[in-house]
């Protein structure tokens, strides 16, 4: 058994709540914490908008709570390490962001998130608040195409929150915001590769075991099994393996315009990511697929896990409009259109 990972923390059981304090401070006054709760909301929320509530387990920073800000999430409900937030946290965060036009719940498709957000949604609907739910299901490794409802949400979250956030800042009705988010989720596909595991600070134990010379293609963000465990391979071969599954799944075809996300799971170097990006662009060009916007960075992490994922979203003029709007948060800030 590996030694517990080195981490600079205080009491691991206080890590989530102390992280949220630090996150709020890093937002320079643009967010606040709900008193006594692991939830944050914007301080600069416009008075009359459709609300977007995001959330999920902690330990994946900067997602999800780091994506609370202008044209992104209006608030986030935070769980403990890799565990969905409890219903009362979601309920209070939802009440704090509601501005009378209803709330879109946007989160990754995991059993725990689904149940806890559904319980909160039932409580809010009992009070007459309109709640819609869109679950991110971009991980093609998790289930075959006919069972997208069984797919996990991974780094597609980055594009989903950016698009839904901009739509919720722009459109007048919850119906319209929900429609845009559903269109976006129907067009996003991802797959990742794991190189080494992350660990939960409180247990100190890695969430899975991989031999020093092994990688796992398609592994989920919490160590959920992928589609193939294999020997370490060159960047081009790994990039090809991911695209081989992602491209036919939608399918992405010649003439399509896409957004591309390369997400670092935590401990992979930017150099590796950029080498992979080079190969991905070669393949996409060969297939006649145009990249409208590239995001290479660190958003959905799993502590010190090494590995990365590739996300493609097929765009139309409406999705491009929202994707290109400026946004500001601790986790992601972008200027005007590319």
């Amino acid at each position, binding site marked *: 058994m590996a030694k517990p990972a080195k981490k600079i923390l205080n009491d691991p059981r206080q890590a989530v709540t102390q992280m949220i304090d630090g996150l709020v401070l890093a937002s320079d006054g643009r967010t606040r914490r709900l008193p006594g709760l692991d939830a944050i909301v914007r301080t600069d929320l416009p008075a009359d908008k459709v609300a977007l509530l995001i959330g999920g387990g902690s330990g994946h920073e900067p997602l999800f709570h780091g994506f609370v800000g202008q044209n992104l999430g209006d608030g986030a409900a935070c*769980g403990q390490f890799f565990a969905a937030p*409890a219903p009362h946290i979601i309920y209070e965060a939802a009440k704090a962001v509601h501005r009378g036009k209803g709330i879109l719940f946007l989160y990754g498709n995991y*059993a*725990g998130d689904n149940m806890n957000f559904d319980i909160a949604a039932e409580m809010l609907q009992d009070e007459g608040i309109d709640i819609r739910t869109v679950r991110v299901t971009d991980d093609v490794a998790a289930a075959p195409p006919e069972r997208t409802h*069984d797919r996990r949400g991974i780094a597609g979250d980055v594009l989903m929150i950016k698009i839904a956030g901009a739509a919720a800042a722009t459109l007048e009705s919850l119906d319209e915001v929900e429609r845009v988010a559903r269109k976006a989720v129907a067009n996003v596909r991802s797959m990742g590769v794991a190189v080494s595991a992350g660990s939960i600070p409180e*247990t100190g*134990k890695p*969430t899975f075991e991989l031999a020093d010379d092994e990688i796992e293609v398609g592994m989920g963000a919490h*160590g959920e099994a992928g589609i193939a465990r294999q020997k370490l391979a060159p960047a081009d071969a790994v990039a090809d393996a991911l695209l081989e599954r992602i491209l036919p799944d939608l399918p992405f075809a010649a003439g399509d315009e896409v957004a591309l996300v390369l997400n670092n799971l935590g401990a992979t170097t930017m150099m590796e990511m950029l080498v992979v990006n080079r190969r991905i662009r070669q393949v996409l060009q060969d297939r006649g697929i145009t990249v409208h916007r590239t995001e290479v960075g660190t958003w959905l992490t799993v502590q010190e896990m090494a590995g990365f994922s590739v996300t493609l979203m097929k765009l139309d003029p409406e999705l491009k409009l929202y994707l290109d709007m400026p946004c500001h948060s601790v986790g992601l800030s972008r200027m005007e259109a590319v």
Partner: protein
Amino acid sequence: MSDAGLGAMDSVAMLQAVARAVIAQVDVLTDADLAIGDGDHGIGMRRGFEAVLTALDTGAPAIDAAFRTTGMAIMANTGGAAGAVFGTLFTAGAKALAGADSVDADGIRRFLAGAQEGVAKRGGVTEGQKTMLDALAHAARAASTAPDLAACLTAAAAGAEAGVAATKSMVATTGKARSLGERSLGHPDPGAISVAIILGAMRDFVSARANDDGGRNG
């Protein structure tokens, strides 16, 4: 041996014993979850049941209120799928005990039936999917004919253990273990183990109480 049902004070004491038993097994649950999940089940259950110890009113609340308080504390503090389903186990079970002034064998059967129905509905799961519902369903069936409270909980706890064993030969089709497919074979479901710990602690509490009564009365 006394076959009187549990009153409110004893119900609270039993729920406290359940909480202590779950907290004591944190490492067992962590290791079971590391095998087929992400390893947070133990610490999540510990968070939830530590909150149960804080939340339970040792005064003498209504019995259903004690069970509901237990469920709400779990749901608010455990988080994840475990918080939702183990919270529901106790809140749905509490509804089945509404108005009861004691818990006897029939009360335990109502509790298990209510819990099973509530968990199945909340989780959208059926038996055979390698979840805690398998332990709960085995327990409910095993308890169906027991004549008294102690026998009922003995049967329920043994049923839950059988349910845990049964999950070893199941392929997970829901939750984070789903992606493991065949690789989940041979491992018990961590949530099922938690159900067995809970019912085992209820059995132990009632048999210890019966022995105490026997000592006093004899």
